């Protein structure tokens, strides 16, 4: 069942823009979609999320980079399927029963671009106060700093907030070699 950009998430978004109080703090507050990759919780800004769909057939692109190995059909559009695990330096893993494809829209080379990636599970939408973000612990985290905004303490544990402006760029960030 595809979860269209609709019901619960959209309503929250709408209520946010309608409430002047919260809108006033929108510079520092964000809503994040929480998903899991290899057990870790990651957050992405909700406004960029287009839709969440069940896994579908993936077309392998011969000789493509490991970060963008495939293509999928999202409602008649050909959309690249990215491997976030690869970019975040996590071991490859096969998708399980709860796996979902997250479709996002972002700007690549000045062009609005739709792209998708596989997540092991998509969990919830939470409010994030950017002011309460903590830096990434130096030890134990495989992912390059440049792709992460910070870490957030949440009821279910640590959430890693991803930096959408660097994460999806076709070329790996030059500072990602740290």
């Amino acid at each position, binding site marked *: 069942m595809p979860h269209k950009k609709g019901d619960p998430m959209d309503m929250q978004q709408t209520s946010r823009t309608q409430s002047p109080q919260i809108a006033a703090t929108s510079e520092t507050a964000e809503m994040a979609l929480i998903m899991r990759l290899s057990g870790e919780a990651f957050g992405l800004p909700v406004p960029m999320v287009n839709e969440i769909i069940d896994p579908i057939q993936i077309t392998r692109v*011969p*000789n493509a980079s490991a970060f963008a190995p495939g*293509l999928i059909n999202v409602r*008649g559009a050909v*959309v690249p399927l990215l491997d976030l695990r690869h970019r975040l330096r996590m071991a490859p893993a096969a998708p399980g029963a709860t796996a979902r494809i997250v479709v996002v829209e972002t700007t*690549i*080379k000045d062009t609005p671009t739709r792209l998708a990636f596989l997540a092991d599970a998509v969990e919830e939408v939470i409010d994030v106060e950017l002011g309460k973000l903590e830096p990434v612990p130096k030890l134990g985290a495989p992912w390059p700093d440049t792709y992460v905004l910070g870490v957030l303490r949440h009821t279910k544990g640590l959430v890693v907030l991803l930096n959408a402006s660097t994460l999806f760029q076709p070329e790996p960030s030059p500072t990602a070699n740290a």
Partner: protein
Amino acid sequence: MVDLSPAVTAYVQESRDILEGLEEALLDLEKRPDPETVDAVFRSLHTLKGGGAMFGFRLMAGFIHHFEDAFDRVRSGDLAISPKLINVVLKARDQMMAMLDCGGDGPETAALVTSAPLVALLTELDAALDNGVPLTPLVAPTRLWHISFRPAATALQNGMRPDRLIEELVALGQAVVTINAEDVPPLDSFDPSVSYLAWQVALTTAQPRSALEAVFIFADDADLDIHEVEGEASGSPQPDQREDKPTETVAAPPQKHDTAGDSVRVSSAKLDEILDQLGELVIAQARLRQISNSIDEPALEGLVEEVERLVTGLRDATLSVRMLPIEMVFGKFRRVVRDLSAELGKEIELETQGGDTEIDKNVLDRLSEPLVHMIRNSIDHGIELPQERSASGKPAKGRLRLSARQEAGEILISIEDDGKGLDAEAIRKKAVDRGLISTEDEISTAELHKLIFAPGFSTAATVSSVSGRGVGMDAVLTTVSALRGSVDVKSYPGQGTRVTLRLPLTLAIIDGLLVRVGAASYVIPLASVEECVEFDSIEHGRESGRTMLQIREHLVPFIDLIDAFDDLPGHEQRRRVVIVKAEGVRVGLVVDDILGQNQTVIKSLGPYHGGLEGFAGATILGNGSVALIADVGLLARRAWAAQEHLRNAA
């Protein structure tokens, strides 16, 4: 200031057309000043000015007024056409285009009108007007015409007044009129509503044939003969050629291009939208076909076939709407050639051929710039100065030929000059300097020629203002490749250079051959497919290390797509070879199976896969999955390169 009402938008659009026509007319006038073209220029300026005042382009109208005035004087024989005048009006025309872009009276236009270049233009115009006595007063020579006219018998009943037409004709010059009443019957059988008379007129006039024909515009069912009596003309010598134009309607708009009538202007964004929708329809139809195949219901089968036929028809119709004659960009080049040859002190004759070849609008739009670049290059680097040419026994005037033609699903556009040709040694030296090749590299002349398209390459010894602008011929190659096309160059020292662009007919939808390689499906553009044969049934050329296939009497190199697409070899018993022709050569593509034909809606590969070699795009199949479209040109090049390599190693 950009929110234009539809009427204003229409005015701006029409004005652009008029300005295009004006440029043509001015260039014609420069070559051959004849009264009809003078008239056309005057009318264009007049129409622009009139509309400008009505649609909120008053500042522009004020500016145009000066030039309209000048041409009114030319019309009345008060002022001669001079290169100076043509020059200043051409420049003014460019400014009018700029004013249209400003979208009407406003600070932007005001700034433009008071800008230094515009004020300078008016001064320049004054200078052109101050030529004193016109050198050759523009009075057309008078000629003697014989006109015989017999109205149709029903003419009177149908409201025609032949007497009035003859009066109109006589008013054009000096005339001798003879009435032939032989056919008038005796009174008892005379019918006053039937026309029995015939007229013979000998007319001496300076008016062109079209003016005479215009008199009889509505008498298309009459016996009419208008012919010029040679040798009886008086006045100045006649221009060498007179066009006998078909009847011109008085009511026809003063434009050369047929923009009136039942045609409708549609923004290209809307066309793109229709095409997108059509693409979705093609995909939906493919899904329908898939479902129908799995159900095996004859009634559904028939309907699916019907829908398929309709979709194909709709596709062809939609694509044909988007096709435009390449003339539309060729026209622009006259000006480029004129201005450039003047700037560089060269004499150049531009020749065009196949301007009516049609090409997708999106291709055309993106082609204009690379073509201009190539023309600049030919004029700047190719064609020599007149004295240089004369010294080497060539005519002083250089020739530049632009031609277009359609061939096997492709458009071929050539730019050919009779200049000095590419200097292979200079190219080699520069390529070594630039680190593109090493001194030891053994490179054929043809390959050296291709290097002019390499990034950052420029052959001019001195950087000229014309083509040495940092964007080299590599920009041409980039654009052409993005359009799924290719570039070919042929050059002979001392004789000239020909660059040929090969482009697909359309960017949007193609017929494809669906093939299976490993577990995946791929599309091969059908236009490049020559035939399909079984792989094992043909003998492989042994001595060439199994890279050649014997296809009847020809040896054809092949490439296994399992290797090219980095897939695992399967256990296919009967593999197939698709023989394709690309960039003028034949190659075989070995596949696991051929699945059938389909209509392929081409979707571009985004920033993640766009740079990848081997694919021209992607498409969505009937089962909803994505399939990649093979870049046949690239695969062909690769197959030949591998073959070449093997032969050299042997």
